[in-house]
């Protein structure tokens, strides 16, 4: 069908009208469109419908009211944790990628390059478990701190609260952003860096003045993707800090598994989506700026 339409166009360019070209184009993208509609648009629409539908089947905001009543703290807690994690991830990724690009010791660079990627291959649930054993009151971190005499055994405290979640998120997501960032830095012209050092710039100045401005876009994309990913992680908060205040994902799971309360769960999901949209706005703004800048 499509093949013959193409043939016809080539042989009779005058007769073949715009309409048939459009038809062929639609036919071409139809399978992809169907998949998107069926698996993405339809569930999202259902979720929206359920979130706004009352017991009588009419429109209501009661589920959102309930969500805010019960979970405002958790929503703010979630936002705070994800924003803090995103900022820390940025700092860690810049430090590692910067050292990989500008570092002076080839052996350290090789070791770091080999080491930093490991968390990429570890699922969130395993990361959560690792942090439990690492950050608990009698966990590895406190053992090391006490053993080295840095803290008293009595003052050892569990870090399995919001701090634990942030540590787990940064540990898991920083390598991802580092990977993107180091790639972007590696593709910079090395002479850009040499020219700066030649003019008297120390490594730190080179990083801030020359390298970072040129990879800003990549950093932003990596951070936005991490931001959205962290918003949707259930396992880490569930394992490290399941008690209130906790992250919205835990609340959604709780509404569904304990109360079979899909309307409130969907309302919470939509609120998460709104948070994710903040990241999307950043991303789109940058993309638009790039198009304008050529």
């Amino acid at each position, binding site marked *: 069908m499509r093949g013959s339409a193409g043939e016809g166009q080539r042989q009779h360019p005058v007769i073949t009208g715009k309409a048939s070209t459009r038809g062929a184009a639609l036919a071409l993208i139809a399978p992809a469109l169907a998949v998107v509609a069926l698996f993405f648009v339809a569930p999202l629409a259902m979720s929206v419908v359920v979130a706004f539908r009352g017991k009588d089947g009419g429109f209501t905001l009661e589920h959102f009211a309930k969500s805010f009543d019960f979970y405002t703290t958790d929503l703010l807690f979630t936002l705070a944790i994800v924003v803090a994690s995103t900022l820390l991830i940025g700092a860690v990724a810049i430090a590692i990628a910067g050292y990989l690009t500008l570092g002076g010791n080839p052996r350290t660079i090789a070791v770091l390059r080999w080491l930093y990627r490991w968390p990429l291959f570890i699922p969130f649930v395993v990361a959560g478990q690792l942090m439990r054993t690492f950050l608990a009151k009698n966990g590895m971190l406190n053992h090391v701190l006490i053993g080295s005499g840095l803290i008293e055994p009595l003052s050892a405290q569990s870090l399995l609260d919001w701090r634990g979640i942030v540590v787990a998120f940064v540990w898991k997501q920083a390598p991802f952003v580092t990977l993107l960032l180091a790639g972007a830095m590696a593709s910079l*012209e090395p002479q*850009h860096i040499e*020219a700066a050092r*030649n003019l008297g710039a120390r490594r730190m100045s080179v990083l801030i003045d020359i390298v970072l401005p*040129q990879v800003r876009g990549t950093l932003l994309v990596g951070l936005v993707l991490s931001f959205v990913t962290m918003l949707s992680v259930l396992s880490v908060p569930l394992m490290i800090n399941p008690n209130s205040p906790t992250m919205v994902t835990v609340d959604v799971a709780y509404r569904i598994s304990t109360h079979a309360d899909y309307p409130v769960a969907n309302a919470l999901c939509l609120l998460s989506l709104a948070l994710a949209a903040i990241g999307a706005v950043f991303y789109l703004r940058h993309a638009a700026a790039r198009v304008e800048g050529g």
Partner: protein
Amino acid sequence: MMHGSGRRVTSEAYSRPEFAPLLDGAVSLDRKLKRLVQRYARARSRLGSSGCGKTTLLRSIAGFVLPDSGTIKVGGRDITRLPPEARETAMMFQSYALWPHMSVADNIAYGLRMRGWKKDAMAARVEEMLKLLQLQGFGPRPVTQLSGGQRQRVAMGRALAVDPHLLLLDEPMSNLDYKVRLELRHELRALQKRIGITAVYVTHDREEALTLADRIAVIDAGRIVQIGAPEQIFHQPSSAFVAGFMGADNALDLVRTENGGLATVTNGVPPEQRIRAHFRSDAARLDGAPPAEDDLVFTGTVAQSVYVGQGYRYRVRAGNADIWVHAPERVAEGTTARVIVPRAALLLFSKDSSL
């Protein structure tokens, strides 16, 4: 400019400002650096151009390559182990390496900013540079909007703004059109004389080197093979390699006759008695005035003629040698011709000195 002795990289900048282009290659290098040079050469040769270490040498002066042994001195100061940012050299890169996210003024001011200059002092110096390079009014423009020649000048301004002890130029003209290159060559020479800065200029372009240089170092396979004034390098090349490089492209084997003259080699002459003779195609002539007594005369057939704008260039087949001759008049291919080479035009090298 550079003194190579044994396996050491030694270089000294003279207090007297001068231009010292490095032609093809680098000073004698130690093992590690040599391996680096070779690796570099291999990588380059894959691209079809020659790399014999001249850029590596420049980079080692700038501090991007660390030599295993030897010392690099600028104005008596040993900079061998200093990091690049502490060397007070300014390098101009082949690709210019201007930072695309900065304006022209920011690019030029960067080195000053790193030296902690005050804002208005910096602005004044940038203005001075823009004026020097005839780029007035270009300050706020993004560098991405400039032409090749303008970028080259901005790169020059960025290097000169910090008033470096030593200016390093790595084939800075190779990305430009021929016409722009000719203009900039003279501009650059005038500029260098005016500000009186010592510069090391790497090029593979003979004309560029001769135009710009106070002293030329010719480099072959990681070694300086001759160093001297342009006239000296041009007229008294120390080896067959330098002679060939400097445009004496005719190479013949000759032998000394009993009365002290020179003759073409016949089959029976052993290699150790042969002398390598180089001469320029425009030093020889085709027939015309009768030969002087000690001129060398070859008889052959014109095998090829090429019009080169100012006259013709002929390939004359004489015996089993090809001789290139430049002549103003047109001669048909296939005619018999006499090539006359004045004795004074011959550059002679014993066979074993040829590289």
